[in-house]
């Protein structure tokens, strides 16, 4: 087996592995979004897996892509997604907290307050 063949094989394996990780993360996030009890836990599940899912799938595709331009475009999409997805999740949780949605806590602890409010 020549060096190029080994490289190609490794590339394919890596690409599909990343793709599998990404898809699995996406699926886990969706199950969390559906099954968890209240907004903040759901946001936690969705927010984290959203980023990891995008990272896995897009990086996997970039590794698999046949030419450099395609790989480059995928990396740009990835960078944008890595910025956008946590931002919107953060902004959403913040907006929810400000409009009075409070996390459901165990026991009798008082609900948290916004510092300076």
């Amino acid at each position, binding site marked *: 087996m020549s060096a190029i063949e080994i490289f190609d094989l490794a590339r394919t394996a890596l690409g599909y592995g990343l793709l599998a990780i990404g898809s*699995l993360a996406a699926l886990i996030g969706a199950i969390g979004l559906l099954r968890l009890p209240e907004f903040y836990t759901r946001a936690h599940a969705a927010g984290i897996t959203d980023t990891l899912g995008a990272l896995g799938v897009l990086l996997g595709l970039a590794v698999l892509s046949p030419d450099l331009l395609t790989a480059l475009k995928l990396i740009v999409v990835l960078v944008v997604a890595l910025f956008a997805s946590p931002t919107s999740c953060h902004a959403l949780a913040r907006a929810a907290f400000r409009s009075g949605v409070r996390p459901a806590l165990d026991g009798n602890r008082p609900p948290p307050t916004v510092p300076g409010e």
Partner: protein
Amino acid sequence: MLFAAVAALFATLALALIRAVAGPTVFDRVLALNLIGTKTILLIAVLGFATDRFDFIDIALVYAVLNLIGTVAVMRYLIGEKERA
């Protein structure tokens, strides 16, 4: 293999839709909207690979940039509503 990825992404999309319809708060729905947006981007990118047409990635790029707008618009509305009340 690409088929498995497409199937997983589609399942994600369908599950998130259930959350978007069920609610109960508006924020849960926005969360689901956001998730569906990202999953559509990934689905389009994978579909481009499955059919060997890489032009589709441009669509994913545009979605990635514009996806934020809907979320921000809903949050703006809710903040404005609270201020008006």
